[in-house]
């Protein structure tokens, strides 16, 4: 079972390798937001989902995750939310 810190490190690694031409903050934490702090575009969430599937070797239910965010009116995604999502689905 990966710890939240390990999952955050995994997530940061996937983000950096998925978008190698961007200069992301040296240190990331769970409060950082995907759009506002990392400067990603919404379509890039789809790309990130694909990369996370590949990294963890499984199909993650990203569609459901995003639908849940939308239904509660979220307009950004904190890395902590992604970590929680990964915790639930990555054994």
């Amino acid at each position: 079972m990966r710890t939240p810190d390990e999952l955050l490190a995994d997530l940061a690694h996937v983000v950096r390798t998925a978008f190698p031409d961007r200069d992301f903050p040296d240190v990331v934490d769970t409060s950082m937001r995907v759009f506002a702090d990392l400067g990603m575009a919404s379509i890039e969430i789809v790309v990130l989902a694909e990369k996370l599937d590949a990294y963890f070797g499984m199909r993650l239910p990203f569609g459901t995750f995003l639908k849940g965010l939308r239904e509660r009116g979220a307009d950004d995604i904190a890395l902590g939310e992604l970590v929680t999502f990964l915790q639930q689905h990555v054994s």
Partner: protein
Amino acid sequence: MPATLTEPQPVSAPPASGWDTEVFVLGAPDRAALRARAVELLAQIDAAPVALPELAAVLAARLAPGGARLAVVAGSHADLRARLARAADRLADPKFKQVRDSNGLYYFDEPLGARGTVALLFPGEGAQYLNMLLDLCAVFPEVEDTFLWCDRLAEEAGRPEASLRRVLHPPPGTTAEERAAIEAELRGLGPSIFGVLLADQAIFRVLEGLRVPAAAIAGHSAGELGALLASGAMDSRESHGSRLPEIMDIMQRQESAVGGPEIALLAVGASKATIEDVARAVADGAVVVAMDNCPHQCVAVGPTDAVAAVERALGERGVIAERLPFKRPYHTPMFEPYMGALRALFTDVPFNPPHTPVYCCTTARLFPTDPAAMRHLAVDQWVTPVEFTRTIERMHADGARLFVECGPRGNLSAFVEDILRGKPFAAIPANVPRKSGPTQINHMVAQLVAHGVDLNLAYLYEGRTSGRTRSASDGVSVDTPSRSDAHPVAHTPGSPASVVHTYLDVMEQFLDAQREVMSAYFGAPVAYAPGAPASGASPASVADLIEAGAWGNVAAPAPTRPATEEKPYALIETVVHHAPGQELVFRRVMDEREDLYADDHTLGGRGVSRENPAQNGLPVLPMTFSLEAMSEAASALAPGKVVTAVRNVRLFRWLPFDPGTTTLEVRARVVAVDPETGAVEVKADVRDLGNSFLSDGTNKPACEATVDLADRYPDAPGPLPFALTDEVACKSSVEDLRRNMFHGPLFQMIRSLDRTGREGIDGTLEVQPRDGWFRSNADPRIAIDPVLTDAAMHILGAWHLEQPDWTGRILLPIGVKSLEFFGPPPPAGTRFFVRGHNEHEDARQVRHGVELFDADGRVWMRLVGAGYWRFYLPFGHVNFFGPKDEYFLSRGVPDAVGANGAHARCHLLEPPADLKQPVLRAAGARVTMTPHELGTFNNWTGTDAELNDWFFGRMLAKDAVRAAWNAKHGEAMFPADMESEAAGARIVCRPRGAAKGEPLPPVRVAIADGKVAALAAFAPTLGIGLQGLAKNAAPDAERAARAATACAAVADALDLPAARCELVSLDATGAAVVSADGARYRVQTARQADTVVATTLCEPA
């Protein structure tokens, strides 16, 4: 075009106005030297912080072509320092080949500007969002002008209520329900297409100002229209724009009538090939890809049941998909029923070979150059799939490397990122909802500059930089400007700003010299004799023009003999060009010292200080003086004739009187002559040659109109129909009217207010003497009477006073359909019966008419279709233009102060967008600030956003102090009679004049999340906290915000870090206890809509 899957929501409130960041560019021969420059700049800033706009402008002016480049976007000195330090680290580390930090740091070892070309991409429908580009309107007049255009079109079409801007930029104060309705309307076919097209054009004008070197252009879906316009292939704005409201209506009706539940659209996070595979397997190909946006987004369209099957199958594959909230099947043959209006729109549009290659998004190739083929493609793209992926791949193959998105939202840039991932390219949006408009423009500029693209960076600083700067040969050295320094600019020698100022200085001297020469020649008072032309061999005076002889002798040379029989027109001062019977250009210096009427026409009100009763608001040129100026020019072109009408008046912007002088230029041109009737038609405009609100006014008319002249005035027509519904006697008195207008005695001609009803109002008026308009001209010669014309419209102000709802009753004119005269200007003392007509009103605009009848009941003047823009300022029940000791721009928040004996008063304000508009903000300053404060305001050297903070912070401090003083002493104070000063990080207020019985109370100000709050109390220690809150915030979030603001209030009061304060308790009434350094203090918290505010007098708990 659909939004992407988890689309970030645009900011919910109108964004902050003004430049909240600056872009700083550095160049050097190579990377090592560039790093050295960054380090050097960092050291200089640490040693002597300078105003950011000045620093940015100097760096921009010093940027040489080529070499290595670093670009930084920062909104504060701290940001700039942090980014320069990060840049120095990155540049020292060879493993970083580039720096692309979305926070605002850009550097590229291999800049793409040298490896390929720049392409512009125009987004189409789906890119729209509420209030898009609203914050750019405040910093780029071109953007504001573009949006104003739809108001004007609607006005011309006789349907101002149909203006698209109503939907794009709803007025402040729009409720959540209204907002939801507007957003739904904005998703409609017409508003979505034309709204984005307008926004595209607005951004394009900014890119033109920056001189972005576009080598190719393309548009996505409806964005193709923008691309064709920008490429020069199509020019429909002038010839077809007036049909815009009609076309949008037709499209909306078609959308409502066509289609049906059987059609569904699905946005899919997968490639076209994936969707087609699934569609073949489960829907027998009935679902088609209408838009191939990029490998991770397509839009599929088809019958609802087939789309549902595809959606299920995609879900089983783990593909993200979402139904779109509309059912128009565009970019498929099923869209053909919607095409009527679009085909009609294009029928008469001329197509030309483009000056810049333009790609077609349905063929993924360049548009053909044959006009008929171009038109065919431009229309048929609506029934043909969008092939954006292939188009971008083609453009990249043809050499495009830098893709600049010329429109709102930034979706296309994300598509390009996805399409070209792994290849050398950059996709740069000019606008994104998550950043303010000015900041994203700065990011765009930063990336282009870092990629080696040379831009006209001076464009960013036009009219903004005003500090004293100088440059040293071995780096930037900038004198720290003083905010109270009232001296004019001394720019870097050779900089564009310097050139402009030098030019204006020379021009002013030249005009002064001319004035003196001509004054001596005529023996007339200085400034009222016409001058010689600036170019051309023969001097031309107004008298010359009058003597030019018979009308129609258009080829006659300019006469040289001045006449003495007739005096010059009042406003024509210096003739700079004259082709008799054809064209006339004259100039006039606007000077408060000479133009006495200006002091009676002051935006913001009058008598705003007891200490100086002569202190008024901001003088602005009345629209009617622009009409007079154009009428005088027309009269000079058609000697012996009279002005019978001024038509199609468009007012684009205010012409404020600067503290110094502003030069007005009037251009007039004869466009038609009827030899049989003697009628002459003249088109004219008025512009200024620069003022502190818009430094480059040249070639930007502030007002334009058509002037009709004839041998005699036409016979008076009968009155317009006027049947009053719900007729009553006017309740308001003439004194009420005067208190509610910002006009002084010269303009106060209304003598009685009689009856009123829904359709209008009746009253009487008496013409006043004209000897007080000008200091040097007691008997001005006029073409129309501008003061009488203005004063006649005051009857409309009285009508508004009679209305129960005063919301949005700050009215400023934007245009007039026609103003007709049926007799010469009447002598002083003439009495008229005046009738105001209410032609139309909606939330943003009103349209009125006025008729003046002489003693015999004949119409002397008729005004029709006078359009006014409504401004919304939160002054509650008291008039912004009325007595300033009675009104508070901000609202009191009694819940935020607990019961106490200190007369504590808390005030809160979310500065309305209208009041951040530079001219209105300046008017606000004129009526609330002391001369010392106005000196700081007028010579501000920080960013526009910092000026907003300074101004609204001081205003709120004064409001809270005035309220507390009044509570204790029962004495109302004028804000302009209160001097505010900085004392460390605090604001201290004291009386402007003699000291009072006790000092004014201490005050604390907090600024956060676009809101400003202030607390004043007769207490030794006080503090305030402020925080924004989502309107639908859950109770937990609200409690957290109350806790944070309570701690912030105590921290503010005790000058402690908030981390040393801890919430002890918070009850249901908002009363809290906060502990700090072992003591406990009482705090009161309160929620006002989307804001939480907390105050404390540090009373022990």
